[in-house]
């Protein structure tokens, strides 16, 4: 026994203890499955994001992505430091705003975690199961803090994905490398001074930039704490600390961080889900119903007389656009999204590029389509994401699908393996050769069984032969993944 007086507990020392002593026996098969699915999804949207200007522009800044290291920039041949990879992949993961989201967080829960976890695991080595455990810990931490500060925090103007996600990144990365309680508390305290992100920059490249910053800075806080950096572990409750500065006195309830910690796990919450389609979440309930209808009924488009879309009235003001003129407007047009679902049987990234929103087949259906508020879906109902779609055929037959509430694809209505693959493949093809995507997806589908993340991360590298373009580049190749072949040559293939 020591005679030294024990330091009084602070919010962050209590939180650090919960993080470091996380009971992994709580992480059951369902928790692993949902976490793995979210990680796969995040990797997919990152592959779609790294060729976007918000990422490629990063490389125009001297020093970004050039520090040596073992961590992969997804979908490229670039290896760099874990910090730089976290930053670049973090920005990529949110580039399309296609990553998963959480209602209590008021933001995106996985994007802050996946980039730094992979970057760190590639540098230090980790099993897939350890990475998933670290992910679960990260989700628990950031959403617990969100429950303590939201929605005041959100409404005030902070971007919670970044300002709260950073603590998830700290918890996940610190857990992965086994920081002790003292250093974990220090890392959280350091991160409190890094937290940033203003909603006023939404709609610009800075929104995904926030995510890259929080991913990188969360990892930096962990690495600094590991090195022996000090910080004020009372910085959460301090009168000039995180809670009082960001929310203000009386506008938070810190005890909610701890109440029912991991009971049940936040990753099992029904208040989070994946985005199945690259358009506004308010269009997803009717789009999902239209896809179900199309899959289950053999509809001849020439026989369609009219299409009726009824949604909860709160879903309409920002998505009621029968004649979108730009790809961005198309993302916020329920008429276009639902018509596209009926015509193509899928809603993909390239449906919101170029002139796709003017496709004649889709415009034909849009001309027959009406959208309005559903008369049976009450204003004050707790279910605000309901939809009903009806396709009436020329012979008078009416085909209907209805769902009372669909907030993303989470625990109550998880995406199927086929739907996951459809989205992942659509996303990954903008960075990786076509033939490299199925083995990657297959490997990720049992991520918890991976003996070393470094072997998994190899599949995220865009491979090339010596002398081929893209091999030792420090710029991102935005020409797309292609089909992964160089020459068509009669003798080039044998079984």
């Amino acid at each position: 026994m020591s005679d030294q007086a024990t330091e009084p507990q602070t919010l962050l020392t209590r939180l650090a203890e919960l993080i470091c002593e996380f009971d992994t026996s709580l992480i059951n098969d369902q928790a692993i499955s949902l976490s793995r699915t979210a990680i796969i999804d995040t990797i997919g949207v990152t592959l779609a994001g790294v060729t976007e200007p918000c990422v490629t522009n990063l490389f125009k800044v001297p020093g970004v992505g050039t520090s040596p290291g073992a961590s992969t920039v997804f979908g490229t041949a670039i290896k760099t430091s874990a910090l730089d990879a976290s930053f670049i992949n973090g920005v990529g993961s949110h580039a399309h705003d296609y990553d998963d989201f959480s209602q209590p967080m008021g933001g995106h829960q996985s994007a802050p975690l996946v980039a730094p976890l992979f970057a760190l695991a590639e540098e230090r080595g980790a099993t897939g199961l350890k990475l998933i455990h670290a992910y679960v810990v990260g989700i628990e931490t950031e959403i617990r803090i969100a429950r303590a500060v939201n929605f005041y925090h959100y409404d005030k103007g902070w971007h919670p994905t970044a300002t709260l996600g950073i603590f998830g990144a700290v918890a996940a990365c610190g857990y992965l490398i086994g920081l002790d309680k003292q250093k974990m508390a220090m890392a959280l305290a350091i991160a409190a001074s890094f937290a940033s992100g203003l909603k006023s920059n939404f709609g610009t490249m800075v929104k995904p930039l926030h995510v890259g910053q929080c991913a990188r800075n969360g990892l930096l806080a962990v690495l600094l704490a590991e090195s022996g950096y000090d910080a004020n572990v009372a910085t959460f409750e301090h009168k000039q600390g995180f809670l009082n500065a960001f929310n203000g006195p009386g506008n938070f309830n810190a005890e909610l961080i701890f109440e029912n910690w991991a009971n049940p796990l936040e990753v099992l919450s029904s208040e989070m889900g994946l985005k199945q389609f690259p358009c506004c979440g308010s269009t997803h309930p009717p789009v999902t119903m239209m896809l179900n209808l199309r899959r289950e009924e053999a509809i001849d488009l020439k026989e369609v007389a009219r299409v009726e879309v009824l949604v909860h009235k709160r879903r309409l003001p920002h998505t009621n656009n029968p004649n979108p003129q730009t790809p961005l407007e198309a993302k916020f047009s329920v008429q276009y999204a639902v018509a596209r679902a009926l015509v193509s049987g899928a809603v993909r990234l390239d449906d919101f590029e170029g002139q796709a929103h003017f496709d004649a087949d889709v415009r034909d259906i849009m001309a027959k389509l009406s959208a309005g508020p559903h008369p049976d879906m009450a204003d004050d109902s707790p279910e605000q994401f309901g939809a009903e779609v009806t396709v009436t055929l020329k012979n008078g037959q009416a085909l209907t699908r209805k769902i009372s509430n669909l907030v993303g694809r989470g625990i109550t209505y998880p995406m199927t393996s086929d739907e996951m693959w459809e989205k992942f493949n659509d996303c990954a093809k903008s960075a990786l050769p076509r033939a490299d995507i199925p083995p990657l997806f297959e490997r990720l589908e049992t991520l918890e069984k991976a003996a070393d993340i470094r072997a998994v991360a190899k599949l995220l590298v865009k491979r090339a032969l010596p002398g081929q373009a893209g091999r030792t580049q420090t710029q991102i190749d935005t020409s797309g993944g292609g089909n992964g072949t160089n020459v068509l040559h009669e003798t080039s293939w044998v079984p």
Partner: protein
Amino acid sequence: MNEFDVIVVGAGNAALAAAVSAKENGAQRVVVLEKAPREMRGGNTHWSGGVLRFAFDDPKEIGPLLPGVEQEYEDFYSGIAPYTKDDFHGDLMRVTSGQTDPVLSHVLVNNSKDTVFWMSEVGKVPMEPAITLTGVRKGNRIVWARGLVVRAEHEGVGLSRSWFATCERMGIEVRYGAAVVGLLQDETGAVCGVTVRDDNGVRALHAKAVVLGCGGFEANVQMRTQHIGPLVGAAKVRGTPHNQGDGLRMAMNLGAMPWGQWSGCHATPISADWGNFAPRELTDRSNRLSYLYGVMINRVGKRFVDEGADGAMFTYAKYGRAILAEPGAKAYQLFDSQVLHLLEPRYSTSEPIMSDTIEGLIEQLDIDDKKQALKTVLEYNAAAKHAADGFDPSQKDGLSTQGLALEKTNWATKLEKAPYYAYSATGGITFTFGGLRVDENTQVVGTDWRPIKGLFACGEMIGGLFYDNYPAGTGLVSGATFGRIAGRQAAALSTGKVLAKAA
């Protein structure tokens, strides 16, 4: 009381075709017992290129398998030659030196197109033109290799994925980590179930019919050494580590008859950079078949084959074995920068050794006699030609060395443009040819020449189809054809239906 109507052992293309067919034909309770865990599921199918060779008289017959193909490829059908049943059977006869089983080979050929359509319609296997494998651009159009136009979308990985999804949709149970260790026989001699070992121990499962579709013995070092010989015993495995010959041994313990070429296997040059098993995530991308544009030297520093004797399609099977016969079963393929762009994309799955000089390159190689290696390359260079003298990678160019004891007879350009690259190579075994004797209904035949009731086999477990070699794209179609028949027969047995004799 039987737990199941039909038990299928294995979970590759043939086994899952059997399971789907059994269900389709009326078996209610069908279970697939997969020895591998979930993350290693699917047998060798995962590693395959997914190409499907089948016979057709009119190229337009292919159309329904490839929706939208005419929009995608200009004048699509004009690049496809008819590939009749006689053509297909002729190819089988040619590559097996006339040894292919006369009954089974005709069942395969006659059913090949119908099988592929069944895979598409019932198996819900999406398909695509095998453009990156067998399509060659000539002018404005693509010319396709004979009989090799279609493959499963996303190759073997996609094919495996589709089969599992179809099983799930049809209510076929798949148990992972369920290793069948023995067959059960009733007092009449009929097979009536299996003994299975899983995480909970060992137990018996009963059914009216058992279909074995659990592959050959390529991953079993003892059986490889015993049946094929010590050279192949030392080979690395390109495919699943789970094909250990279990099903073959179990069946033979019951008196099943071995059939076909037990000393035969399919082996190719693959990278030597990995352990005994090529990593699963590389699928078929461990192959190293561009040696025809370079020079291959062994660990005592010497060349040992005519790298340019012919196109890779005609030499790879021989050279896989040839490397195995060299010291340490290893060789290096040396290239210079003027031919680097000709390497197959599959070379990108490993990092080459590189140097600005030939001396510097050889210095880094795992070669015992480096002086000899340098001498070999310098002698080769003295006897070889410049690319400008008529090098033509699109055909046998006749550009030969002159004056070497072992000439390189085509594509013999000097190693003269730095930097220089070396890739390791060894022999990798794909699958074994030896199997069981089955009748045209895939029922296993005993050494007493009588069928064993209740026991069916399919896939690589069927002996007698392939000897010495096999025509590319035949393995999957054979697997699905005989798997489908096995499933149908097993369902009939379990439901008491009498089937007409198979075509």
